């Protein structure tokens, strides 16, 4: 590799470099300022701001970094920087900003202030892993990035004062994650054995030009899907999700439910598109190699995911757990968008994800504020909250309405584009199943509203007073949910721009 090449490659991974540098800075700062950790969140913010600028530039500044070839010298890189990856990196960055504020407010994190340095270092480890996952086009880099993300999140899931539920969350996440990634690695080894390469583009070339045993390839694909499926918590790789979400500190739960899932989706889409799709047809449908039936697998998995997620959320009494199951269901809807295997479906996924970010994090934030004050996450304890704390009640209502997907919120626009994509692809039966699922979701989200507004509290509900910065923050989260609900043009345009995945 010559230096010119190296230079251009490095310039393409600027955000990743920034994050790594700030990871080190945080560790150093933690060592220097042993007593006062107040600086660290601001250091983290500085890193995020720089990285976000670099990510935004990546929407237009695209290319292959680290061109490297085992076999075919295709000169396509291990990392592909494109608008699609930038979109997901943006999602990750936005949720990281929100996470910093979450952590700043969260009582759970405040209690372990001494460990703030490690906390942020691990978060930056996660971000680095997720950034690589959003743009990696080499199976080994994917595996390394996945491990980076996983190891950081295993620790973070148990990051609080040592309690049974935190350490249990950690252990479950660990065993489950390690098993899935072990399966994935075995799948990667089979891919390697078949094609002699781990580069997605080269695998694509190979699959297109050689006769391969479909069974072997299908099995390897399923093994790799196990690794991805666990990250996006799709059925049947979702079992860890509710337990970990309930056990982890709320800030981390919220983060896992959005950022980590975003990285998983970016990976899934890029893996399918780069390794299996030969070209887009005129309508934007993907010409997919017939070696493995991704369409059926994704439809099967997404239907199971949303149905199981919704059915289980139906009777939860812990709101954090309810949100965990509902996040599984949301992953199911989005998988359906991927299953369309077209640019239109992908646009729907991107739009959905962008809105999901705000509505889900917003709901989690309010749940955290209430838990900070009342110490409870039980839905029964929300009785009468709409009257004692009208601001929180109304805000949570709006987030819930958005999560159901009802107008006039952004959640509706997400579902609308998804349904349109499904119908345009003639997947009518599937669309109707998704619809029935939304009806189930209607029930359990509305249940929370019922408790807040229509049920009188038997005991005197504590008034949850909200300090001004939190009000501003909630309004900041609410604004996109409401504004994009009626004026969604810019988001749709941006998403349309970001479906461009390099490499065809």
């Amino acid at each position, binding site marked *: 590799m010559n230096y010119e090449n190296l230079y251009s490659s490095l310039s393409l991974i600027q955000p990743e470099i920034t994050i790594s540098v700030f990871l080190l800075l945080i560790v150093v700062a933690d060592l220097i300022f042993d007593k006062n950790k107040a600086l660290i969140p601001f250091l983290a913010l500085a890193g995020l701001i720089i990285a976000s600028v670099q990510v935004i530039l990546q929407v237009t500044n695209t290319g292959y970094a680290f061109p490297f070839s*085992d*076999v075919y010298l295709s000169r396509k890189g291990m990392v592909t920087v494109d608008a699609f990856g930038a979109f997901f990196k943006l999602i990750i960055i936005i949720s990281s900003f929100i996470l910093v504020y979450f952590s700043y407010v969260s009582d759970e994190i405040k209690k372990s202030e001494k460990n703030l340095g490690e906390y942020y270092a691990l978060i930056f480890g996660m971000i680095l892993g997720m950034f690589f996952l959003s743009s990696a086009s080499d199976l*080994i880099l994917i*595996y*390394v990035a996945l*491990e980076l993300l996983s*190891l950081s999140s*295993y*620790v973070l899931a*148990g990051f609080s004062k*040592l*309690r*049974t*539920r935190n*350490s*249990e*969350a*950690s*252990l*479950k996440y*660990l*065993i489950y994650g*390690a*098993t899935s990634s*072990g*399966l994935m*690695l*075995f799948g*990667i*080894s*089979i891919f*390697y*054995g078949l094609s*002699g*390469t*781990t580069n997605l583009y080269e695998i694509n070339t190979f699959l297109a030009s050689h006769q391969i045993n479909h069974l072997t390839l299908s099995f390897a694909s399923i093994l790799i899907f196990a690794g991805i499926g666990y990250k996006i918590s799709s059925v049947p790789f979702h079992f860890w999700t*509710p*337990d*970990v979400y*309930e*056990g982890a500190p709320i800030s981390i739960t919220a983060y896992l439910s959005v950022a980590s899932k975003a990285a998983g989706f970016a990976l899934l889409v890029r893996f399918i598109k780069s390794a299996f799709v030969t070209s887009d047809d005129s309508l934007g449908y993907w010409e997919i190699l017939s070696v493995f039936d991704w369409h059926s697998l994704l439809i099967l998995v997404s239907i199971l995911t949303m149905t199981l997620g919704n059915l289980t959320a139906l009777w939860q009494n812990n709101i954090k757990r309810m949100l965990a199951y509902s996040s599984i269901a949301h992953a199911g809807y989005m998988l359906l968008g991927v299953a369309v295997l077209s640019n239109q479906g992908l646009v729907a996924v991107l739009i959905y994800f962008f809105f999901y970010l705000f509505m889900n994090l917003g709901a989690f934030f309010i749940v955290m504020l209430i838990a900070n004050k009342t110490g409870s996450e039980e839905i029964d304890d929300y009785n009468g909250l709409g009257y004692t704390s009208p601001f929180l009640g109304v805000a949570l209502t709006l987030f819930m309405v958005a999560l159901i997907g009802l107008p006039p919120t952004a959640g509706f626009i997400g579902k609308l584009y998804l349904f349109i994509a499904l119908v345009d692809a003639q997947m009518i039966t599937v669309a109707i199943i998704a619809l029935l699922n939304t009806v189930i979701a209607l029930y359990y989200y509305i249940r929370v509203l019922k408790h807040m507004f229509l049920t009188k509290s038997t005991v005197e509900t504590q008034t949850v007073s909200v300090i001004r910065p939190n009000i501003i923050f909630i309004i900041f989260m609410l604004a996109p949910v409401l504004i994009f609900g009626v004026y969604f043009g810019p988001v749709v345009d941006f998403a349309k721009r970001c479906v461009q995945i390099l490499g065809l």
Partner: protein
Amino acid sequence: MQVELTHFLVVSTLLFSMGVFAIVTRKNAILVLMGIELMLNAANINFVAFSKFGGFGLSGQVIALFVIILAAAEAAIALAIVLNIYKTFSNVNVDEINNLKE
């Protein structure tokens, strides 16, 4: 008489299955982790064997190297987590660590 790819694949498959078996049957968290180690080792044999017999150069070996180190890092984290589990549950039996459910 030459050793063929076949044999190593059979070995790696057996190893992988053993790993799976350990993960599912062992109740001690530590031994479950061992099962995961076995799975990773199986994958490693694959990488090396494929690169040798497929004539893919040394890339398989490099990959194996990465995996070895990742496995070690994972083991370190895992052990620390198990220690914390022991601290809170006074126990490392995975069957009894089930406060979070349903």
